[in-house]
């Protein structure tokens, strides 16, 4: 089998000045994940490596650089799934975690559940020894600017993020 890894950095409207950043980011993540496959490790190791790379890149809406909720805070969701066993793990509305994808993998590997949410996910992260980070450390100036812009009464956050239907 010839290994393969494919990544995305999100669908929507990418401002002209951020296109190159986004392209460079997905290329770097694909290389990082593919290096894992070339080293003979599993597809699960590879996708978690690639997504961790993307979460750490402020160009993307995940981890550091996440969009903000209406209160100006970061709440993140993540999922992993293993096609060999159909095992899966997910977290939702999780805060203060730099890499939710790694927490989702721990849910899959260390619990009998599929999804942990909000405070319970945070409690599980602490029990697993996953370091907490200040919420503000995940917020970029770009995310704050978009949040403020979309607080306007006539703003349409879905259209702003996804664009109009063609």
């Amino acid at each position, binding site marked *: *089998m*010839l*290994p*393969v*890894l*494919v*990544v*995305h*950095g*999100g*669908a*929507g*409207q*990418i401002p002209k000045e951020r*296109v190159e950043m*986004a*392209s460079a980011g*997905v290329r770097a*993540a*694909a*290389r990082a*994940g*593919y290096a894992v496959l070339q080293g003979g490790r*599993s*597809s*699960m190791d*590879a*996708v978690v490596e*690639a997504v961790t790379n*993307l*979460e750490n890149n402020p160009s993307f*809406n995940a981890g550091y650089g*996440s*969009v*903000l*909720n*209406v209160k100006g*805070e970061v*709440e993140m*969701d*993540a*999922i992993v*799934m*293993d*096609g*060999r066993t159909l095992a899966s793990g*997910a977290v*939702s509305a999780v805060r203060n975690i730099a890499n*939710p994808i790694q927490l*989702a993998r721990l849910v899959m590997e260390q619990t009998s559940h599929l*999804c942990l*949410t909000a405070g319970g996910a945070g409690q599980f992260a602490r029990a697993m020894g996953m370091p907490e980070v200040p919420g503000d450390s995940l917020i970029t100036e770009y995310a704050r600017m978009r*949040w403020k812009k979309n607080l306007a009464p006539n*703003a349409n*956050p*879905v259209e*702003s993020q*996804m*664009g109009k*239907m063609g």
Partner: protein
Amino acid sequence: TVGAVAVDEDGNIACATSTGGMLNKMEGRVGDTACIGCGGYADNRAGAVSPTGHGEAIMKVTLARLILFHMAQGMSPEEASDLGLATMKERVEGLGGVVTVDPQGRWAARFTSTQMAWAAAQGGTLHFGVFSGEDVTQDI
């Protein structure tokens, strides 16, 4: 949203998706990403999908599982991805994109939104693009 799908040298398939969610969402809103079959699905018998886009629309059509259903019926990753995304657009006016692999290592990066940054690594080649129809290649 960011995501990845992969097939390793043993033929095992996996997916991963992570997101900050929707811009200015209500506190406590959870979209497709954390929901199995919506924000991701992987099955060695069919393939793997990691979606991105309007989460509520993705959930209404269970996009990842829908695409893998089409692949289990014999469609290629590209055909199944396009059909799944077209269904989402037609039925619930949702836009989005996916990265998809099948057990043979065939792959697709497809989207109905204006843009989607994507990259694929296989053999010695890296494919990547942002705009519709774009597929640039370079050596890894």
